[in-house]
């Protein structure tokens, strides 16, 4: 379904703030799998999602979706395969357009946009029905500007928009991190329902250990631009938050060791 082969990405190459975000990531996703992506800050997990979505072109390696090589495709062209929800609840919706207008834009994801009316009566009715599945009462406010809604409502709508046309791949980038606990919980429940219902191939970045163990059928952990752990099947099902925390602690210790070793070398030779 998704084939990522040895991708590399370095930001600000050659300057003093060079960041090697991805250092050879290879990953293969099966149809219908739900992968949780975990990692420390700056480990490259969001960068990995952005690389797949086409926010930038990778320096090296290849990405294929459904057997189609998309390595050099710009973001908007890949959107025909990919649905996306961002960390920032404001990134996925246009604030000065109404709920209905935002949704109708999403209902043509990956299709051409011509001079037909964006909204017709029958189409609006369909969209209203889709919104009612969120159970937030937003179907009564189809003509309200999205900017007047809360972050949780906007994120739920973004999720709905990204799956309105069934995507081949759904990318969720810490999509509940900026929400209050109640909204986050609501959005996660909707996520679980939609992904299970449509059997969507999904990659979800998260910082929440609880989400990491309760959701998904596979888990990858990233560190310093590489995948350091890849669990699936029974291993993933047995996973508890404590195991993950322990693994993080291990990684942190290894990092400390690296730093102290570097310090030792610096003192001795410089």
């Amino acid at each position, binding site marked *: 379904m998704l084939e990522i082969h040895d991708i590399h990405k370095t930001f600000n190459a050659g300057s003093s703030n060079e960041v090697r975000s991805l250092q050879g990531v290879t990953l293969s996703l099966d149809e219908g799998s739900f992968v949780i992506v975990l990692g420390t800050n700056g480990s490259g997990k969001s960068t990995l999602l952005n690389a797949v979505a086409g926010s930038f072109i990778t320096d090296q390696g290849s990405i294929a979706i459904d057997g189609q090589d998309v390595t050099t495709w*710009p973001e908007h062209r890949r959107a025909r395969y990919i649905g996306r929800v961002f960390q920032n609840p404001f990134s996925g919706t246009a604030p*000065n357009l109404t709920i209905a207008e935002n949704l109708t834009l999403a209902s043509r*994801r990956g299709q051409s946009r011509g*001079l037909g*009316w964006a*909204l017709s009566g029958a189409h609006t009715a369909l969209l209203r029905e889709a919104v009612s599945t969120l159970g937030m009462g937003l179907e009564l406010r189809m003509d309200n500007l999205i900017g007047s809604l809360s972050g949780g409502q906007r994120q739920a709508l973004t999720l709905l928009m990204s799956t309105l046309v069934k995507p081949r791949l759904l990318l969720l980038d810490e999509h509940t991190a900026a929400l209050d606990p109640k909204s986050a919980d609501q959005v996660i429940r909707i996520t679980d329902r939609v992904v299970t219902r449509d059997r969507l191939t999904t990659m979800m970045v998260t910082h929440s250990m609880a989400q990491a163990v309760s959701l998904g059928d596979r888990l990858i952990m990233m560190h310093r631009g590489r995948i350091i752990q890849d669990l699936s099947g029974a291993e993933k099902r047995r996973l508890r938050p404590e195991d993950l925390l322990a693994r993080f602690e291990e990684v942190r210790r290894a990092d400390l060791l690296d730093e102290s070793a570097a310090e030792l070398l610096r003192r001795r030779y410089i």
Partner: protein
Amino acid sequence: MNLLIGSLTIGLIVSVLALGVYISFRIFNFPDLTCEGTVTLGAAVSAVLLLNGSGPTVAIVVAMLICALAGALTGVIHTRFKVNDLLAGILVMTALYSVNLHVMGGSNLPLAHTSGFANAAAHLGKAVFGGRETIELLGRSASVSDLSVLFAVLLIAACVCALLYAFFRTQLGLAMRATGDNSQMIRALGASDSGMQTMGLAISNALCGLSGALLAQYQGFADISMGIGSLVAGLASVILGEALVGSRKLGHLLVAAILGAILFRLLVAVALRVGLNPNDLKLITAAFVLIALVAPMLIRQWRKHKPRTGVRHA
């Protein structure tokens, strides 16, 4: 009376420009200086075509198409080659200065003895009113030809406004509005934000060209300096209109841009009548736009700081 009709006519001609500026500045958030060049380009192209015997409609349509190309060029320079938005506009505007001089073959091109839209409208008006030169309007006599021109311009502005309103409710138009609102989102939904922006600038500059062409045909000459200050004048109209209407609905905002342009023109006419030195006009317009842009921020800051300073002094 004639002064009022003249101001209204020019106001409506400028309102087409204001609609163009509304598209670039408000919908795409793009301060597009290209319009300073395309107003003149529209005037120049339509003037030369008229002098070579084309009809006014053909002259206007061709002028609009060429100005759309200029706008698209700015869009491509900005989106494809990542040149800063202001600079992209300035580059094309500067280049257009020479182009315009070449098109006109000089810095001024009189249109005497040609039949622009104004003459056509005046003829039609006279025919309708049975050949009379003046009619009574609100107890004063008004020239039939001036009134006909005003009516023609009103019709054009209304058509442009209605077309834009319809366009921005189509799938393509809606995607354009979304691009200005949230370009990340529109990319994620599979539309090229670069393409949308380039197309939007083309439309915006086509309207600037239309405004320039109408102005040249109305006043009877094209001049190299016609476009100077047009972005700021357009902005002033848009801002005035928004203040007048106080709504965020698309239809209201489009009408607001037109009303703003007319009001702005009337204010200018009154100020000139009262004795304002015409040389100060651009200075005052710029100051007005600056105040309109900065005032909301200053008021916010003032509101935020007021309680705190009170505590400090206590």
